């Protein structure tokens, strides 16, 4: 309190603020949603608040799916917010702040009811809500944000000067200050929390750890807040789930909630998830060598060639490649034939015991019988980073640049990729735009079928899934073949 009075010295403003705050039910733009709304809500309001928020969350989720950068996502979310769920700061004039915040509050709690029901829904809801909170946090007014942080206990301890001095060197090395501030400036403030509160900073080694405490610099403070937001939301969802059965008798609300959760599920396309492509596209084990040469993205070609060379693939390689082939249209029987032949040096007995089960499992025929989707680019890029003996992963991300260039040339030069194209592809790789690099390779290798730079895998889309790459490539081949057939019918070429 003293602090805020100090920052705003004018007697009048201070007094007026006190007055305003005492009447405002929602003093801050940001909300940790610790308390549920307790007023009466009409059923119509109940639905509208939820639907508008849902639209916003669906937009955020699809941004993730399209691999948008954080900045792009933020722009999209802010724009959609203005439309569906505006939320203005305390300084905004002529806006009904109170009503906006009430809508935000109610919407959040209704969606909790709708999305607490399955693990999958909870995970997606938390992810989208967290992104929304981050967007708002970053776009919030500094002073107001500070006040919001004061209003809630986050359980951090400021690191005292003695400790700051003792660990000065380690602190500087663990979280080096940004260039502009380096040198001269007074010691930065640090906060001490259990390391489990800031897993993201720990994972990237961006803090100093001692005896289980993480020393978080003031500028990374937001990590603690975001983690706390996520943790408390996850916990509340579990609680909500426990109480949900009591709602069962309410015939007004339950169907509404069902609708909402289905809407969220449908909001995001999962075209490449599981079903093999349209009937008639069945492929057999014998066709794979040919398909790989013509249609596979580099990750899959690399796996294919590794398999041919080593007569074996490690676990994650089998998984990444096997699920890809499944979605491509390889039936379970053909899959077993394919893998059996590929592991040509292996005894039948060993294959049947150790591998067949896993292949059947990935087709949903064993164990919990889940129909596993093929891995998307994002999954390949971010999860199960290849270990030192593995062949899976994304070549653009996980190869050294020399191996990547050699690999590209050896795999794709027959389709028109030349040494002169490497420079461009490698420049995308260097900037971390792996999917752009992959898309560019697609464009180059399909230029004979009329694909131009910027076309991507149709309508300028970039590659987000290996199966998308392969099926687009096969489509192109089919359409150019049919053109040829028609052409042959009309004129006989000399």
């Amino acid at each position: 309190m003293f602090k805020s009075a100090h920052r705003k010295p004018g007697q009048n403003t201070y007094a007026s603020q006190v007055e305003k705050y005492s009447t405002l039910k929602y003093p801050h733009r940001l909300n940790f949603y610790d308390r549920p709304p307790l007023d009466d809500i009409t059923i119509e309001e109940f639905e509208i608040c939820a639907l508008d928020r849902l639209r916003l969350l669906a937009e955020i989720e699809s941004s993730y799916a399209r691999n948008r950068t954080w900045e792009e996502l933020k722009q999209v979310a802010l724009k959609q917010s203005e439309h569906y769920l505006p939320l203005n700061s305390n300084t905004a004039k002529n806006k009904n702040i109170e009503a906006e915040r009430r809508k935000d509050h109610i919407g959040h709690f209704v969606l909790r009811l709708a999305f607490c029901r399955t693990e999958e829904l909870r995970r997606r809801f938390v992810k989208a809500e967290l992104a929304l909170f981050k967007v708002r946090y970053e776009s919030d007014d500094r002073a107001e944000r500070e006040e919001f942080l004061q209003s809630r206990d986050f359980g951090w301890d400021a690191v005292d000067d003695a400790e700051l001095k003792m660990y000065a060197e380690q602190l500087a090395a663990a979280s080096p200050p940004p260039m502009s501030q380096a040198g001269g400036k007074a010691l930065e403030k640090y906060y001490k929390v259990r390391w489990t509160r800031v897993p993201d900073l720990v994972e990237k080694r961006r803090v100093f750890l001692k005896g289980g405490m993480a020393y978080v610099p003031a500028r990374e403070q937001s990590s603690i807040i975001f983690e706390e937001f996520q943790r408390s939301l996850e916990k509340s969802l579990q609680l909500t789930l426990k109480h949900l059965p009591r709602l069962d008798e309410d015939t007004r609300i339950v169907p509404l909630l069902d609708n909402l959760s289905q809407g969220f599920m449908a909001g995001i396309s999962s075209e490449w998830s599981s079903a093999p492509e349209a009937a008639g596209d069945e492929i057999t084990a014998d066709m794979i060598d040919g398909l790989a040469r013509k249609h596979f993205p580099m990750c899959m070609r690399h796996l294919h060639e590794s398999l041919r060379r080593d007569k074996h693939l490690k676990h994650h390689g089998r998984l990444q490649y096997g699920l890809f082939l499944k979605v491509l249209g390889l039936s379970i029987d053909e899959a077993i034939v394919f893998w059996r032949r590929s592991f040509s040096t292996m005894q039948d007995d060993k294959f049947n015991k150790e591998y067949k089960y896993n292949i059947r499992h990935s087709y949903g025929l064993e164990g919990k019988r889940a129909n596993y989707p093929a891995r998307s680019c994002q999954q390949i890029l971010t999860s199960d980073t290849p270990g030192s003996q593995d062949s899976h992963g994304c070549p653009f991300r996980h190869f050294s640049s020399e191996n990547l260039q050699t690999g590209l040339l050896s795999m794709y030069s027959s389709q028109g990729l030349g040494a002169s194209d490497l420079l461009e592809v490698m420049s995308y790789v260097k900037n971390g735009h792996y999917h752009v690099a992959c898309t560019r390779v697609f464009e180059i290798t399909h230029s004979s079928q009329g694909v131009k730079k910027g076309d991507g895998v149709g309508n300028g889309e970039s590659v987000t899934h290996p199966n998308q790459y392969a099926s687009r490539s096969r489509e192109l081949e089919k359409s150019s073949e049919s053109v040829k057939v028609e052409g042959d019918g009309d004129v006989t070429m000399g």
Partner: protein
Amino acid sequence: MPAAMQEDLSPEVMLAFYRRLYPFKSLFTWLNHEHTPTKQFINREFAFTLAGDVYLRYQSFVTADEMKKQVCQMNPTRFEIGPVYSARPRDRKTVRPTAFQPQLRELVFDIDMTDYDSIRTCCQDAAICARCWKFIAVAVRVLDSSIRDQFGYKHLLWVYSGRRGIHLWISDAEAMELTDEQRRALVGWMTVIQGGKDMVKKVNVRRGAAGPLPPSLQAVVDSYLKFAFPDIILDDQNLFSVRERWEEMLKLLPPGKVRNELQEEWDMDSERASADKWQDMRDAIKSADSKEKSTLKLVVQDIVLQYTYPRLDAEVSKHRNHLLKAPFCVHPKTGRVCVPVDPSDIDNFNPEAVPTVGQLLQELNNVVTETEGEHHSDWEKTSLKPYVDMMDKHAQALMEEVRKTKRGADLSW
């Protein structure tokens, strides 16, 4: 290990081992943290591997005796330990799926010699010798000290895996409660060697190209790796006397004068000893111009890390519901018992001196048995004793911890 290959692991031998030697009581106290059975043991999943590779999951028991009875009845070739669930695993079909979730689990690490295949010359694949063990020894020292110092965990149990690796089980209360996300974060902190077969440079830990090493890694380099590198890689393995290997190492240097010169020099004398080659490189760096020199010095540190830092099997540690072979099981290929290892004496641990089932049963036969009937702690009469004692001491510390927190809670009330 031709002798080990002929180890008799028939069902009769295994049954005798479980009936007379396996320390079920010790396993129980270690998992349970108390004398009276708690959720920590009752809701714990065990998975049995039976003869013919039949895999039986979701076994659970109320007491050590019940577990022993079941193990003797099924006579598995080995069994694994999973998480503590919110309900008894054997009852899982009677509860709602949402009420059956993994809740607690020791934080585990697995280090396996196969991940070192590209940097050892003495053995390949499943084979392991005293020289390979040095890699494991360094890994144990690094991991043990890092976890204690940085994460503040105290209850670490190291267990030899019976053939070519070692497991670590951490039983501190906080470690047991970690979520998958937190486990992943911790593994990320510990993982330094990254990138598949096709990535040359597997160490990328600096912030920016020329930033300092993170303090945790700097400490590890200064106190362990700096010494381990010349000892293991240069002298013992003499790794860079193989053309393929020194070429790999040289690729880690930035392209430039130093790299080219060394390439030419070693081309002429490919089998030159590793220590001499390393000296060549240091000399070359010393005489390089100042700009190149400063980057090269960092590269040298990175090389040391790449060749000696522990190579973790990260997937094992990331998920609460991963199953890991229980201590004191018998390795199905070597017949050796998976015994606890003292990390402070890791350098003197000799995997080939670990007792095998056959050997232990032989020892038992040599002792004249006076009493008839069920045998409970016959291990006391064999060379398994020091290992069981080590486990009991570890479990004792855990029980002490629980007592302390309970007493604390009483006082505050």
